[in-house]
């Protein structure tokens, strides 16, 4: 059962990611990326990361992709694609395929040292245990992340508001 779900989720994720990359329209690409996010959330559930799976759907599919869709709607884009020379695309694709197969070979060969594995924690991946870790060991990074978000809000407002030519 777990194996079947793994194959469904991973095939779906790879398929919709491919559709996203090959699609010309940005809206369709965004929809395919949302599909990929949902399949990845399924993989996270298989890996017992329940909080991260919920955050994946809420933050990525719910917030970030909606922001993307809003920007696509705001910009009145006329599609034009494919002016890149065919040979150049083949070279890029080939080089990335080589590097990607290196990655995949590394992923296939990597193994965990059995000495590194700790005892199984029954509360693995629950909101309580992640929250406890966030507020004890990772308190400072957590607070810095909130400052980062504040800076991003201010930066986004300032960047989207002013024009380049009246910046003086």
């Amino acid at each position, binding site marked *: 059962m*777990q194996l079947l779900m793994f194959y469904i989720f*991973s095939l779906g994720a*790879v398929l919709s*990611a491919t559709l996203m*990359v090959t699609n010309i329209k*940005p809206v369709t*690409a*965004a929809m395919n*990326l949302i599909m990929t*996010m949902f399949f*990845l959330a399924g*993989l*996270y559930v298989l*890996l017992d*990361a329940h*909080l991260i799976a919920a955050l*994946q759907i809420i*933050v*990525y599919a719910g917030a*970030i992709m909606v922001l*993307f869709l809003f920007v696509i709607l705001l910009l009145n*884009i006329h599609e*034009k*694609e494919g*002016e890149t020379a065919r040979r150049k*695309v083949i070279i*890029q*694709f080939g080089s*990335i*395929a080589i590097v*990607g197969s290196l*990655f995949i070979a590394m*992923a*296939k*060969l*990597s*193994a*965990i040292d059995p000495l590194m594995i*700790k*005892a*199984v*924690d029954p509360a*693995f*991946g629950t909101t309580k*245990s*992640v929250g406890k*870790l966030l507020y004890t*060991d990772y308190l400072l*990074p957590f607070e810095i*992340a909130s400052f*980062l*978000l504040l*800076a*991003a*809000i201010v930066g986004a407002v300032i*960047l*989207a508001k*002013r*024009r*380049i030519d009246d910046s003086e």
Partner: protein
Amino acid sequence: MVSLNSYLIVGAILFSIGAVGVFTRRNVLIIYMCIELMLNAVNLTFISFSKFLNDMNGHVFVFMIMTVAAAEAAVGLAIIISLFRNKATIYVDDINLSKG
């Protein structure tokens, strides 16, 4: 039981697809989406190692990556809007403001 390597291979494939998108597409919005896809592939790798090592610290890392991705999306899309307002294009071939 699905092995660790299967999850890592899925992560590697997704990362490569994202890289292909970043290098071959000309639309800034789709390049951004491909960057998000690459971040997601890294998240999957973090979570699978976290599960197979029984170590919760990977979850905190994924949490931080999600925060950074949200900040990056907000600022990047603001830059795209400002760029579109000034240059009326979102294709990277037409964007050469910092060309010497």
